[in-house]
């Protein structure tokens, strides 16, 4: 059974194994540096459907089925699935997964959803309540754009701090026993808000949440960022990454050399004109499930702290003048089942 260290961090005593992962992307993701990391790329962002919402659902179906295929498992062998996305009421997940017949937990953590779903699945597995679970997350540029901003054909100008919602999905199959990597500990984030109101500057809005969660994890475990191969934040982009490093430095935590951000990895920011970087929960889902977790499986990376950040606003509250509340959940992954940081 899991136990707590410090105030915020939950250590998993039977660390669940990540049995297999899959990542799905579209055209922009193919044009980026991580093309090879994706299991399936459909250049048509409609994924042969007639609406963006259906396209996103298909991405989730594909991500889960591909991951299950790689793990050699059937849907009926999965005890529960934890999934979420950015669409209203999480329809990307619920409609994408409705045919599978797997017990379903809908998760909403905005762009932090990949960490939140991994976290939920892992703690359930550790408790013995489940034997196998899937964590799945997606976002779709077009579906998000029409919901949060403007019609796609609308002629608007993006500011330099704006981030690009990834059209990507990632799924991870977790099991009680299995090979590396393992989910060793998790830190649940608190809702942070330092008053940023610019919806085109999500990185700045979310950086405090990431800083707080990283600081708590380091304090709870007595470690520092350089003890890990990578502290990888989800979707802070260029602006948010600079800010999180700065914020942590003020607390005496040096992130500098061991930090990267999923939003900076998925695209070639200059060449693809991505402004401040990638975002959307599919961004960290794609990067983790397509790139980082497989590198851990190959034993190239060993100790990873994954901190996915999410902005918990919607267009209604932003139009009403609310500032952007945000959150960051942390998952500590290791190739070792014991030892390491916890």
């Amino acid at each position, binding site marked *: 059974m899991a136990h707590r260290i410090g105030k915020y961090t939950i250590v998993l005593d039977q660390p669940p194994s990540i049995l297999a992962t899959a990542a799905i992307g579209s055209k922009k993701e193919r044009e980026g540096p991580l093309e090879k990391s994706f299991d399936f790329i459909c250049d048509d962002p409609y994924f042969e459907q007639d609406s963006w919402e259906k396209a996103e659902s298909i991405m989730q179906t594909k991500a889960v089925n591909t991951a299950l295929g790689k793990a050699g498992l059937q849907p009926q062998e999965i005890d529960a699935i934890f999934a979420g996305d950015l669409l209203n009421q999480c329809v990307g997940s619920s409609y994408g997964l409705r045919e599978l017949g797997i017990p379903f937990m809908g998760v909403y953590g905005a762009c932090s959803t990949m960490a939140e779903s991994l976290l939920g699945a892992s703690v359930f597995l550790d408790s013995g309540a489940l034997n196998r679970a899937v964590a799945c997350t997606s976002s779709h540029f077009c579906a998000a754009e029409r919901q949060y901003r403007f019609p*796609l054909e609308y002629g608007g100008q993006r500011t330099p701090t704006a981030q690009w919602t990834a059209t990507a999905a990632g799924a991870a199959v977790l099991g009680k026993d299995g090979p590396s990597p393992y989910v060793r500990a998790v830190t649940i984030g608190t809702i942070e808000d330092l008053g940023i109101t610019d919806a085109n500057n999500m990185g700045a809005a979310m950086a405090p949440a990431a800083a707080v969660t990283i600081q708590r994890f380091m304090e709870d475990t007595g470690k520092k960022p350089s003890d890990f191969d990578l502290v990888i934040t989800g979707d802070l982009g260029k602006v948010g990454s600079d800010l999180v490093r700065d914020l942590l430095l003020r607390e005496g935590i040096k992130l500098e050399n061991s930090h990267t951000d999923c939003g900076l990895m998925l695209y070639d920011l200059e060449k693809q004109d991505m402004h401040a970087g990638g975002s959307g929960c599919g961004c960290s889902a794609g990067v983790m499930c397509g790139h980082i977790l497989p590198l851990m499986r190959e034993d190239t990376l060993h100790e990873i702290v994954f901190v996915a950040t999410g902005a918990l606003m919607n267009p209604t509250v932003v139009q009403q003048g609310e500032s952007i509340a945000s959150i960051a959940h942390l998952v500590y992954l290791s190739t070792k089942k014991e030892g390491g940081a916890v």
Partner: protein
Amino acid sequence: MDLFIPLLRAFVVGGILCGIGQLLIDFTKLTPARILTGYVVTGVILGGIGVYQKLVDFAGAGASVPLLGFGNLLAKGVREAVAEQGMLGILTGGFTACAGGIAAAVVLSLLSAVLWKSKIK
């Protein structure tokens, strides 16, 4: 030359009006919808006090194509309608003056939605 001068005037005046809009976007963080709305209302005011028509006479499309011109048109329409119909003109003038543009935009937008679906580069 009789072609070049009016084109140049339209270009310069229209360009300046757009440039002001750009400065508003970059420095005030006003959303595009607010800028459009602000331009139309300003156009009504400038048209109402009779300033804007002078600019239209000078720059032609350079003043009538930016949304300020749309506001000016509304004001002009109201003025003419009040002169013709009296009090009712207060209500009919605006829509009458801009009816052509709006009807064209509505019908063509409907048609565009019949013909195309949204795409991404």
